[in-house]
Every structure is written in C-alpha cells, then in structure tokens.
C-alpha cells in the first residue's frame, strides 16, 4: 500500500529502495552564483549580480534547512563559482552533502567543440576535487532548453561519473546507453514542474530574457505536494531542482520547509544522487 491507501502499481517501480521505502526523494541544488551571468554576458554588475545572492543568502539558508531535517542534498556547482567561493563549497561538502559537476561557466554544451567540451569538464572536475578532496561523480548540463552534445555522456563516463541528470524523458532513474550500448551510468531525469525556476525566476534572469509569472509560495507548495502524491503512489521517485538564488528568499524558503516536512510524513528515502546511482547500478548487476 502506498500513501493514502492507494495500491502502488508496481510495474512502474523498477528499483527497490532501502528499508522498504516507497519512494526515493532527491533534492538537488544548482549553486549557480555569478557564473551564469558571466557565461552569458560577461557582466555581473548591477542587476546582473543576482548570482551573488546564492552564496550569500540562498545556500546558507538551504544548508540550515537540510541540517535541521537531517537530509543530504546534491549541489551542482559550476567550476567558476567554486573558484570564487571555495569556503562555501567546502562547507557544503563538510556538512555531508554531495558536490557534483555543472560546467565551468554554466556552458551550453551543444555549442562547444568536443575538445573545448572535454577541457571544460576536466577543468571543473579538478577545481571541485581540489576544494573538497572528493572527485564529483555526476554531471548536470547547464543552459536550460539546450541539448548536450553527442560526446557529453562519454566524456562524463571517461571521468568515471556514474550519473548524469540532463535528460527529461522519464520520471525515474534508468540506465544510460551510449552508442546503443548500456554503460555503467544512471540517468536521473528532471522535469520543469519540479524545478523552482518555473515559478520564481526573476525577469531577465541569466540574461535570457525570461519573464515568467511569479507564483505565490503557498501555490507552489500545493503544486509540489500534488506532484509528490502522484509520484509517491505510482512511480516511487521524486527529484526536485532548486536554485538557492531563487528559492533562498525569505518568503520562499517556507515552500521548501513545508515540502520537506510533508514528505517526511511518508515512507520515503531521502538520498543524494550518487547514492541513488550506486544503488541502481548494484541492482542492475544483481538482476
């Protein structure tokens, strides 16, 4: 029986979570400080300095919340931001959260040459490893609405990454295929309705001229609860994408607080991305 007494269909739940949990919940945070605006426009002054909100207010608030609830998150950090805020990155890692790769200056990977792409991935990887002492194990493409290149996944695999989180074609993790062959890598897909940017992106964010309607905090919380209910009951996987630069506002943090408290009432497994990927890979071998 799933939440609210609705029988889970089972067929859609391909992986078994630890301790009989009905649903894995992974909370991801895109660190996205000024690297985003720097990457797009080489300008991080005036209203283009919004990325600075992330290390200054957003991330500390998120860390406080995660600590309070004893939940570990996964932080996707552009290398350029890590170079500028190494202490902040160290603090995240020391609190037991996962640090994952997210490009150097939040690049659009479909526009880079393979050589440049490899350089960016390796450079960002080294920066994060040097700061935390732990090599990242996964990647998420930056630049919304843009694809990755035909090479991205193999480059990630070459660096021993065990997961990617750039695709949007599923509700739950699945094994990655490269050139038609399954590899030791798990895709952890995401979706727009579970991405805070859909409801709280500032106008002209990232120099991309996005103008989206702002939604009331309570409205967003209700929508996410509705999404969670459906995924908890019928899929068993819930993956949230948060931008501390947007969510970290005083009026919005209660959304995250409300959602985490709500989910804790159910039989869920709060997990980092690499924990999910490790478990999925292990269960694929056992099959």
């Amino acid at each position, binding site marked *: 029986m799933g939440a609210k007494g609705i029988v889970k269909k089972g067929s859609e739940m391909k992986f078994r979570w630890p301790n009989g949990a009905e649903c894995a919940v992974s909370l991801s945070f895109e660190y996205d400080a000024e690297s985003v605006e720097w990457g797009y426009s080489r300008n991080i002054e005036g209203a283009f300095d919004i990325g600075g909100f992330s290390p200054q207010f957003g991330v500390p608030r998120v860390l406080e919340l995660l600590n309070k609830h004893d939940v570990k998150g996964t932080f996707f950090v552009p290398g350029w931001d890590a170079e500028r805020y190494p202490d902040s990155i160290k603090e995240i890692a020391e609190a037991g959260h996962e640090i994952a790769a997210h490009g150097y200056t939040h690049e659009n990977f479909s526009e880079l040459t393979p050589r440049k792409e490899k350089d960016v991935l390796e450079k960002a990887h080294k920066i994060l490893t040097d700061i935390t002492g732990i090599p990242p194990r996964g990647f998420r493409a930056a630049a919304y*609405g843009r694809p*990755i*290149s035909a090479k991205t996944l193999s480059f990630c695999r070459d660096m021993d990454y065990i997961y990617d989180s750039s695709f949007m*074609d599923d509700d739950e993790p699945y094994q990655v295929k490269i050139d038609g062959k399954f590899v030791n890598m798990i895709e952890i897909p995401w979706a727009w*309705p579970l991405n805070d940017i*859909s409801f709280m992106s500032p106008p002209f964010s990232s120099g991309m001229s996005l103008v989206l309607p702002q939604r009331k905090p309570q409205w967003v919380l209700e*929508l996410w609860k509705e999404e969670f209910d459906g995924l908890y009951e*019928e899929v068993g996987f819930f993956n949230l994408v948060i931008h501390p630069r947007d969510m970290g506002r005083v009026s919005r943090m209660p959304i995250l607080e409300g959602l985490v408290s709500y989910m804790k009432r159910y039989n869920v497994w709060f997990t980092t991305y690499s924990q999910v990927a490790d478990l999925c890979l292990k269960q694929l071998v056992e099959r």
Partner: protein
Amino acid sequence: MEKFKWPNKYKSAVIFTFDVDGCAEQQLYEGNTLGHNSAGDYRPKIAVPRILNILDRHGLKATFIIPAWVAQRFPQRVKEIHNRGHEIGAHGYLHENFSTLSESEEREIHNKSGKIIADMIGTPPKAFRTPGGPLTTRTMKMLLENGYDCDSSSVKNYFPSRVKLEGKEVDMAEIPFSWLTDDFPYFWGGYEDKPGPPSFMPISAPKDVLEYWMAEFDGIHEIGGLFVYLNHPRAIGRISRLRVLDKLIHHIKATPSVWITNLREVVNWVLRE
C-alpha cells in the same frame, strides 16, 4: 448559431486525440535529441502507456497522431496503440511545417510517412493533423489523393463539417480542435522547442486546469458542439495531470446525453450517405 445534428438524439459529442510528437522537432531543426532536447521522448516512452491504461479503464477509444519518424523510433508503442483498438493518425515525418516546403518535398513526406505507418500497423492512416504551420489547399488535395478522409487542423468551429475545396464538397471531414482544451497552454513548461529566441511557458496547477476544461466542456455541451480533447502526452503524461484527465472524463460521463465517441465515428457521421 447553426445547430449540428448528432446521432441518436445525443446533445453533444466528445472525442479524445493525442499528439505524440516525440522529439521530432528537435531532430528536424537541431539534429539533437539529447539532454534538455529529450523531453519529447517522455510521450511515447512514459506517457502513452499510462494514457492507454486510463482509456481502457474508461472503455474509450482515442486517436493518436504520430509523426512517422517517432513511430519508427517507438514501433512497439505504435503497434500497442493500434492493437488496443485506437486509431493512428498522420502528422508528417518529422513534424514539418509544410508551408515552407516545395510541392514535391511535401508530397514525398506524405507518401513516406503514410507508408511507414501502414507497414507498421497494416493499414494506412486516414486522419491527419498538420504538424507545424497553416494547412494549405495544396495539403488538402494531397491528403485526398492519399486516401485520407479526415483533417483535424482547424480551430475556428465547435462543429465538425464536410470540407469544401475550391467551392466543391469533398470526401473529407474537418474535425476542429481548440487550444483551450489542449494541454499545451497549461502544462508545457520549459523553453519552446523550436529554434529562435528562447521562450518559456508558465506551468499551471493541475487542479486549476480541471476548472478550465470542465467549463469549456459544459459550454460546448450546452450548444450541442463537439468537444475535442487534444493532448500532448509530454505535458499531460505526468501522474498529477493524468489525474485531472481522469476527473474530466468522470465529469463528462456524469453529464447526460453526451455521445462519448472517437474521431473515426464522428468522421463517419459527417461523411454519411
């Protein structure tokens, strides 16, 4: 307003159609279906099986409009849709905008996509919805030549009708749809798929959308029209949203004197005698 006569004294009619566009446009315009361009695959991969289950549960038959390239990518899914009693309609090869193509280019796409679907399910498609861009007289003529008897690209009417081509009635039914009962404006989210300046669609709360759809259905029922539910499984395919579709179907079923049918039945009714 003109009255449309439905069979068996039904007051109004309802049909369900699903546009399974897949990643056709990403392939067509960018040659890349990876990363954020993969969202279209959600439809055939994840959403269609869920939709088939809902339709079965309600005893409904629907029409799935599929670009032939997407059908080739997910042939088992197409066969499953067909084997479970639903109609497969044509939607170009790669979701092309026919108005930008030459006559011979367009003709080749109709021939190719019709043949791919026919080879897959054993019968050529008879229903068509234009993928991108306006529907031209040229397209309508080619559809007639290729044995189609239904187009569903118009949005100006609440009633189906027989198509008039250059002043003459032809053996083709027009089944108009509406953006209002499409999931696209409410649930799409993300950047527009097509190249050009990035644009982003707001995302609605599922329970709010139920109110839009029920109001529109109630109004169409009142005037005796045809309620065409047009759905993009990428958008509607999430569990939270399919629950809204389920509630809408319950609402429609609870309304007396509605002919809950499918596109094929309405086409036959329009083209009778």
